[in-house]
């Protein structure tokens, strides 16, 4: 069974009767069994996936209406609720939590006959960008297992890159879909804020986070966006998708389009091979008829500090519910006073979660809010204006997704500031709410480099067209695992 096909190829082959959902899903599960010991992309594997695939094959044979996914195996980041399935957020705090309902994205995929092969590893509560902060151990990069796969949706990106499934859903608060997509050489998309419902996504920083697909091709992302996007009465921040067909006209190209090269994302600290790849991507886009010019977005320099201040504040509030009274685990109360019971129970949080909760208590507190939190919100506002101004002149913006190559496991884990700066190119689109996508572009010393394209608010369809154009210029080697 050839597992190295795209989602659209899978649909076509099942429709034509060339392959069955059961054979494909069985092979995917076998692949997981064979390689996941090395990669640790999954926290749980769905033991009923093959049975489910058999049911879909029966539907196909009997001529019943079948959903658009035709039994396609998809992995789901473990902070997205699937009814009756464990949803741990890669935390010991939620080790035994079973979701009592489906996230909206899960309901939509079920309706279209997708099969969830398992829950993907992640940084605990999505706080991190290497997957090293998972309470169940890190995922490994399939391009070189000594290296991090990126994060926080690291398990999702690894599972797609290593052919353990066809596509995955991650969540992106400051680059958590695009960063691992770049490090694992797959496509990662962060939609316009509100385009995909967050209902059923365990909250980290509600005001900027989004669920996003991770796929092998840009067309697959468009295919999934057709299913996932749109208004949801359970999430009041969702926006109309205007009944867009994101796949239609995806090959429109970028002739005559103007692209701004963000200078603040190409400067100090960038790896020379990443800089060279970005310049190469610009040349290729110019070769396709785009006009590329430098653009400056001054607030990018302050965006990481603003991002961490805002997300820590929201995390401090969101994680207050894990007090062992509302959510938690069995832990006897005898011998504790109220506050000390909660403090003891919270010992199950990992170090990064605790650090961010303390930050989240500190930066918005009386006496400090003016210096940190309110200033961070002002930076967010000014950054959003600067981004809007840039789109008066340009159709798209471009920058490397991550300014450095994937690094070794353990290399940066003890240096929080070094880790902060890995986020510098991705947080802007979360803070300003615009869509952005990481497209696999090159391999340097055996490690992947992704290029990030960004478009104006609501221009997701146009962004996918540009991403498709960029994708068409590359021919990358296969993952060596």
């Amino acid at each position, binding site marked *: 069974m050839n597992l190295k096909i795209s989602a659209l190829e899978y649909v076509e082959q099942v429709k034509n009767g060339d392959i069955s959902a059961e054979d494909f899903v069985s092979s995917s599960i076998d692949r997981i069994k064979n390689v996941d010991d090395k990669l640790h992309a999954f926290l749980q594997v769905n033991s009923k996936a093959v049975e489910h695939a058999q049911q879909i094959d029966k539907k196909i044979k009997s001529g019943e209406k079948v959903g658009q996914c035709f039994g396609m195996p998809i992995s789901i980041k473990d902070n997205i609720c699937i009814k009756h399935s464990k949803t741990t957020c890669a935390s010991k705090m939620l080790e035994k939590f*079973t979701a*009592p*309902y489906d996230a909206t994205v899960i309901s939509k995929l079920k309706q279209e006959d997708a099969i969830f092969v398992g829950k993907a590893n992640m940084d605990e509560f999505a706080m991190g960008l290497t997957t090293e902060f998972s309470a169940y151990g890190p995922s490994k990069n399939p391009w070189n297992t000594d290296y991090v796969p990126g994060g926080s949706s690291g398990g999702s990106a690894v599972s797609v890159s290593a052919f353990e499934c066809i596509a995955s859903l991650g969540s992106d608060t400051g680059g958590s879909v695009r960063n691992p997509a770049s490090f694992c050489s797959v496509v990662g998309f962060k939609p316009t804020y509100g385009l995909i419902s967050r209902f059923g996504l365990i909250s980290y920083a509600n005001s900027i986070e989004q669920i996003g697909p991770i796929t092998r091709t840009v067309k697959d992302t468009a295919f999934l966006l057709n299913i996932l996007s749109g208004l949801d*009465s*359970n999430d*009041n921040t969702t926006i109309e998708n205007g009944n867009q067909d994101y796949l239609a006209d995806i090959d429109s190209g970028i002739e005559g389009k103007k692209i701004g090269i963000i200078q603040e994302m190409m400067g100090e600290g960038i790896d020379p091979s990443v800089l060279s790849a970005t310049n190469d991507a610009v040349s290729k886009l110019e070769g396709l008829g785009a006009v590329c010019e430098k653009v400056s977005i001054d*607030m990018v*320099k*302050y965006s990481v*500090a*603003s991002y*961490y*201040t805002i997300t820590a504040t929201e995390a*401090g509030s969101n994680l207050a519910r894990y*007090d*062992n*009274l509302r959510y938690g685990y*069995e832990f006897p*109360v005898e011998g504790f*006073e*109220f*506050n000390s*019971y*909660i*403090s*003891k129970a*919270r*010992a199950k*949080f990992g*170090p990064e979660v*605790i*650090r961010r*909760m*303390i*930050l*989240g*208590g*500190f*930066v918005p*507190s009386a006496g400090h809010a003016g*210096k*940190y939190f*309110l*200033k*961070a*919100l*002002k*930076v*967010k*506002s*000014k950054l*959003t204006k600067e981004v809007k101004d840039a789109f008066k002149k340009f159709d798209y913006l471009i920058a490397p997704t991550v300014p450095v190559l994937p690094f070794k496991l353990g290399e940066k884990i003890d240096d*929080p*500031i070094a880790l*902060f700066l890995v986020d510098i190119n991705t947080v802007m689109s979360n803070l300003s709410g615009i869509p952005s996508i990481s497209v696999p572009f090159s391999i340097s010393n055996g490690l992947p480099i992704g290029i990030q394209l960004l478009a104006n608010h609501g221009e997701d369809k146009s962004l996918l067209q540009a991403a498709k154009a960029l994708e068409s210029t590359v021919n990358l080697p296969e993952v060596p695992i």
Partner: protein
Amino acid sequence: MVTEEEIEQVAKLMKIDVHDHKEFVEKVHDMINYFDILDSAGVSEEEISMKDLPLTSLREDKHIPFGENLIEKLNNYKGHYVRAPKMV
């Protein structure tokens, strides 16, 4: 400059026990100090942008019964009562 005592006080208010005390506080200290970069952003005159959400666009505020009997899934209940930890 933030002091270590201030960080310890916030941890206490957040009901968090800090282990590996010194190293932990130092890291949080470094993170907060990094945020001082916001002082040079020159945004003191900037207005914080808000997005208004009219009440009419919120979903109706009514009870929607859950499809399953959740209480039966709990470990510690009697009749319709759930036993919560005794705190005083």
